[in-house]
Structure formats: structure tokens, C-alpha cells
């Protein structure tokens, strides 16, 4: 109602509504009879309407009960307007009904219905839910609605969004670490490192060294030069480039590349830095929902621990 803050509009709506209802009743009453001239003029058996010279409209009256149906609609609208808020916001209606109240009632009904089910899963630990067919499916549905937009419907992520189905974890793959990522969210801060490393050539040298860590094809001469500059990176990624889940520093020795595994892509990462963000879901999802999603994500990366199950079936 923000557009109609003036009380004027309440009365505007109320008056039009009341006049319409009363008008319908008066119209019905006035149109249920007609005056006819006896003896002169058109035959009272016809309405007096003539088309095409000879086509007459006969007077075929409706049954009496039909008229009462019309009056019942008038009575119905009066009763409705007394019970429900149909006359602007000044009169709330005797039932005090609101659309938000109805919505809250439905939410409450859903909670009483599904609450016990969610509560029972909240008591189970993550690997147990991952092995439970129904719990996994519930988690999968929550995942599809909330997580798949970034991580993909199969959880395999894409550029900039981690793959959740492999064994590599930016922030740790234990149940508690996954839950923390979901509940609190994560902010990865890879700063722009170009200044610390040196010039553009030095950055590419480091990129070649990073590629060498995972055994990818690289220029070994440039990699050797880059190894010296890598000291600046070791603070977070470790001297061996193994990464640090506590900081969200990626393991550079595996073959997964969040932002691309070419020299150009790695050089861009070093030059400009990267800021990956996982939003916090507390507040949006309930504890039980987050718990179920944790279990589903856990099951994606640990298919052996979750019971082999057929695809979700509706």
C-alpha cells in the first residue's frame, strides 16, 4: 500500500464498493418489472423489439427463483464485506483476516507436519544421513534449490566455483568444515601479488613453477627462476605449495584449477588476485536444512561412504 498512503484512497475504494453493491440491488429491483400499454402499441407478449423488419423478440420470463439468486449474490457481498477487509484498510473486517496471516498459518502447518522429520535428521550425524536414502534425497532437493546455481546441478562447480565431487577441498572436507562453509560462508582472499613477485616476466616464471608443482607441462628454465619468487606465495600456500585449508589457500600440487590452469590464467590470478565468496546460509536455511545439505555435499565427495543409491525418484 506504499503507493496509496493517503486515507483518501481507503474511502475512495469503500465508497465505490458500497455504491456498486447497492446499485446492483436497485438495478435488479427496477429491472424485474416493466410497464406495458394495454390495448395500444406492441403486443405485450413481445418485448417490442423488432429486427430485420419481422424478427420479434418474445417476452420469455425467467423463473422467479432465478431473480432470488441475483439477490443472494448481493446479500453474499454484504456479508463478505462485513467479514473480510474489502473496504480499504480502514475497516479490517470482523474476521481480521490478512493474506500474510494466512501465509503464516500455512507455514506453521507445514512446520508441524515436517518438523519432526527434520528434527530426526538433525540428531543424526553427517555420514549417517549421507548413507540414508531419504535424507540424502532431501539434502539433494535443498541443494538443487539453493546451491546448484553456482555449484551446478551435479555439484561439479565451474570456473570460480569449486567442484564438490572431488577429493580436493579449499576449506576442508570433514563434515564440520563443510558445515562451517555452508553456515558461516567463506571469503577467500588471494591478494594481487604482482608487486611482491616482480615484473610481468617474473609473474609468468612463477606461473610456470606453479604448473610444475602438479606435473603439468611447463618451461623448466622459467620454473626454476619462478621457484625463487614463490617465496612470496609460500606464506599462504606453504613452501611446497600444498595450500592451507584454514586460510582457504588452494593446494597447487593437484590438477584441479579453480580459475584455470593455463599460464595466462595463473598469471592473471597472481597479478590481480582472486576473491572467491561463498555466502553464509544461516538465516536463509534452517539448521536442519543446512545439516541435510552438509550431508548431501559430503556424500558427493565420499560416494563410497554413502550407500550406493539410484538417482532421486519423485
Amino acid at each position, binding site marked *: 500500500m506504499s503507493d496509496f498512503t493517503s486515507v483518501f484512497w481507503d474511502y475512495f475504494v469503500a465508497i465505490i464498493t458500497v455504491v456498486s453493491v447497492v446499485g446492483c440491488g436497485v438495478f435488479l429491483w427496477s*429491472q*424485474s*418489472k*416493466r*410497464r*406495458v*400499454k*394495454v*390495448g*395500444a402499441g406492441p403486443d*405485450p*407478449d413481445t418485448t417490442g423489439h423488432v429486427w430485420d423488419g419481422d424478427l420479434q423478440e418474445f*417476452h*420469455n*420470463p*425467467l*423463473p*422467479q*427463483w*432465478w*431473480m432470488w439468486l441475483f439477490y443472494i449474490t448481493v446479500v453474499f457481498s454484504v456479508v463478505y464485506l462485513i467479514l473480510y477487509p474489502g473496504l480499504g484498510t480502514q475497516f479490517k473486517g470482523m474476521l481480521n483476516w490478512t493474506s500474510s496471516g494466512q501465509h503464516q498459518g500455512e507455514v506453521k502447518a507445514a512446520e508441524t507436519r515436517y518438523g519432526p522429520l527434520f528434527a530426526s535428521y538433525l540428531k543424526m550425524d553427517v555420514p549417517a544421513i549421507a548413507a540414508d536414502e531419504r535424507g540424502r534425497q532431501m539434502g539433494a532437493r535443498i541443494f538443487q534449490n539453493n546451491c*546448484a*546455481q*553456482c*555449484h*551446478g*546441478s*551435479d555439484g*561439479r*562447480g*565451474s*570456473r570460480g*566455483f569449486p567442484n564438490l565431487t572431488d577429493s580436493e577441498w579449499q576449506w576442508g572436507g570433514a563434515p564440520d568444515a563443510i558445515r562451517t562453509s555452508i553456515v558461516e560462508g567463506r571469503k577467500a582472499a588471494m591478494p594481487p601479488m604482482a608487486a611482491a613477485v616482480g615484473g610481468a616476466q617474473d609473474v609468468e616464471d612463477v606461473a610456470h613453477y606453479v604448473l610444475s608443482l602438479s606435473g603439468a607441462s611447463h618451461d623448466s628454465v622459467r620454473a626454476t627462476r619462478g621457484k625463487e619468487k614463490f617465496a612470496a606465495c609460500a606464506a599462504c600456500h606453504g613452501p611446497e605449495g600444498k595450500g592451507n585449508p584454514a586460510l582457504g589457500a588452494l593446494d597447487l600440487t593437484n*590438477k*584441479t*584449477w579453480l580459475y*584455470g*590452469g*593455463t599460464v595466462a590464467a595463473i598469471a592473471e590470478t597472481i597479478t590481480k588476485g582472486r576473491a572467491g565468496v561463498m555466502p553464509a546460509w544461516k538465516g536463509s536455511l534452517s539448521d536442519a536444512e543446512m545439516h541435510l545439505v552438509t550431508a548431501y555435499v559430503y556424500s558427493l565427495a565420499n560416494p563410497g561412504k554413502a550407500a550406493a543409491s*539410484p*538417482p*532421486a*525418484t*519423485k
Partner: protein
Amino acid sequence: MNAVDEGRKVEAASTAATEQAEAVQSLYAKRVEIYPRAKIGDRLAWFQKWRWATVWITQIVFYGLPWLTWNDRQAVLFELVARRFYIFGLVLWPQDIVFLTGILIIAAFALFLFTAVGGRLWCGYACPQTVYTEIFMWIEKAFEGDRNQRMRLDREPMSPRKFARKAAKHVAWIAVALWTGYTFVGYFTPIRELGAEMVALQIGGWSAFWVLFYGFATYGNSGWMREQVCKYMCPYARFQSAMFDQDTLIVTYDEARGEPRGGGSRKKSRAELGLGDCVDCGLCVQVCPTGIDIRMGLQYECIGCAACIDACDHTMQKVGLPKGLVRYSTTNAVRNHLDSHAMWRRIFRPRVLVYSAFLLAITTALAVAMSLRVPLKVDLIRDRGALASETEDGRVENSYRMQVSNTTEARRAYTISVSGLPGLTVASETRFEVGPAAVASIPVRLLADAGQVTPGSHKIAVEVRADDDPGVAVRETTTFLGLRR
């Protein structure tokens, strides 16, 4: 005085009215009860037999169908909650709504065709309103007698005898109505379970509502409303005139032969008295379920039930005159004295031929579509979040989600295959199973060698084939995106 005359009555205005005699006329009229006479001769008359035949056929089908079993389930069941329509071996899904559309179009064109040829055949013989009114009037006759007894009974003051008869009639009506409501709901929820719930008084709120609602509608429409439904409420009765023409078969009174009407005398022949064949027995008016006089010509109230034909033929036979004074004929035939051969030949007129052509075309199309229907539905949706990604070994990966609906009633295994790009393979599971009449959501990952895929979009096809029947296969086209570097 019938209902129409009642309304046309002009009430005299107050005595103070001027000489210019003005009067007030109500535009609504009190309904006047109609007491159609059922008994015409000793036996059922010809068209009466036809009407009872359609009553029996339609009601045996309606009341009997929900009790048949097929594949260990109700043979005909429209499960609205699960959105599955079972019709014997056929399982229809919401996606099959086009078949329902086809059936409705066929029904509409069949109605047009029958109306153009034979007038209100549907109204007179097959419409539920007519059929249930027929059943309810039969019950009424069993308790209160035929036309004259019923009129006498209604004029009598209330007495224990009158009350008992009326009450018994309503109890019987309500029983039939409730059974009708129960049967109707039994098409949408398993009828045996519904029956058990009703006996145990554990019926669900909505089921109870619809049983009572449909029962009430049956009781009200067939017991109380009757011809008023046809006269004031039915839209078909109103647009039928668009399908009528001068060559449409209607119930007609042969005015040239019948008039002037009169009782005649034993001493003089009708010809000597200058009388037509109508002996004015009034039977045609007494049997009419809508209370009209067919001798006034075609009227909008006439539902084409042919009761007056039966009545007139009976009288003609009795007085020794030829039958057919009231008969199925066309406006053209009566006016131009066409013989029956000339009248029937006029069936092949453009209107009828066009309706027939449409009916035939749509029936054929529906039959072909039904026979080519594959009991498998596949919907392939690209993941929107990720266009394409690169795998550890440098290949290009696209992800999809596939909805597979198994519309048979047995668990089935399927295999996925892809085509459209050299070296394109399915990286996810290629084989999966879907339960009976169930939907599965399958993640599909496709891989292609980076060297084979140029950046941009490529048309590919994914085929899902049932393992046990290669004829059950669906091909879905989609796009595979190459990486931009």
C-alpha cells in the same frame, strides 16, 4: 396455463390508472410444475424404447466402469493428486493433455454433426440431464403414480398418506443421487477404498464434499429443476440454433394435414366436418417433459425427445388414421412436401460434409498420435550456472540435468547415448533405471576433446533407449558449448 403464459400475464394496474390503461408486467414468472405423462400404450412406445436403451447403456457404463480391474489397479482412474490418468492399459500424464484436447474436439464436432443432421438428439436421448430426469421420473411414478394421480396428490391437503408417498420418493431419489455422487468420485479416487472409508465413516473431507455435492446436483437437477436446466441454464440449448438449418431433422407437426383440429363425430366423417387429422386429444402436450405444445411449431424449449411422436402415433392408430402426424421431419420437407427419399438425400449438404470431414480428420489424427505414442518422456536441461568447464586432463565438460518419465507400469532400464560431435562421450552413468510410472532426475555430464570443440555452441543429440525394447527411444537435441579462451 404453462410457465410461459404465466409470465406473459398482464396484471391490471391500480384502478386509478388512466384510460391509457398502463399495466405492470413482471419480467420473472413463477415456475409452473410440469407433470409429464409416462404411460402411452400398454407397452413401451418406439422412441420411449430408444430412450430407455440409452439410459441403460450410459448408466451401466457409468456405474460399472469404476469397478473393473486392470493390472491389479482400477481400470479407469483419474488420479488428480498423482497426475496420472489410467484408462485400461493406457497411462496418461499431464504432458498428454493434447489427447484430452483431441477427444474434446471430437466430442464437439460429433455434437455439431449429430445436431445438423438430427436436431437435438443429444438433448433428447443421451444428455445426463435427460437420462437422470428419466430415472427420477420413473421413481416418482412408482411412488406417486402417473400424471393424473400426481396432479391429484399435489392438490390434496397434506395427509399421512401423502406425506408417506412424498417421503418415500425423496428417500429413493436421495439414495440414487448419493450412489451417483459416490460413483463419480470413484473415478478420481479408488472406488473400493472410498467405499470402505464411507462404511467406516472415515471419509476424507474433500471426498465427502464431492460425493455430497455431486449427489446434491443430481437430486436437485433431476428431481426439482428438470426442464428448467434445459430452458434457462444450458448453453448448448442456446447455441444449437447455429447448427440448425432448413434440412435438419426436428420433431414437427404436419400442420397442413392436422388442421383444423377437432374431436369429430360418430355420425359424420372428418372430411364432411372439414376437419384435419388432429383429433385434439392433447396427449402430445401431456407427455411433453418441457410442457410445450408441439403443434405451435419448433420452440426453443423442445429437447427433441420424441415423446409426442409416440403419443400421436398411438392416437392415430387408435382412431384409424395414418401415423406420422407428428414425426421427425425437416422444415423443408414439411413445407415443400418432399418424400422421404428427397429429404434424406439432403443430408449430403455442405454443412454436414464439412462437419464430417473435420470429425474424420481429427479422429484419424488422434488415433495415429495415440498409436505412435512412446511411453517415455525425456526433458534435457542445460545447467545454467556453468556454461562449459575444463577437466583435469584438459577436456571440455558440459553438465545437464535430464528428467526421464517412465510412463509404463513396469520398472525399466534405459541407456543414454550421444551424437553430434566427434569424440563426444557420456562421462556420467550411461545406464539407469526408472520405477513404474515414475520420474527420475538424472545428472548427465558430456565430455569432448578440447581439440575437437571450437569455442561456441554445437548442436548435439542425446538419445535415451529402453534396454528391453529398442522401439522405446526418445532423442533430445541440445547444445554443447566449447570453451572460450
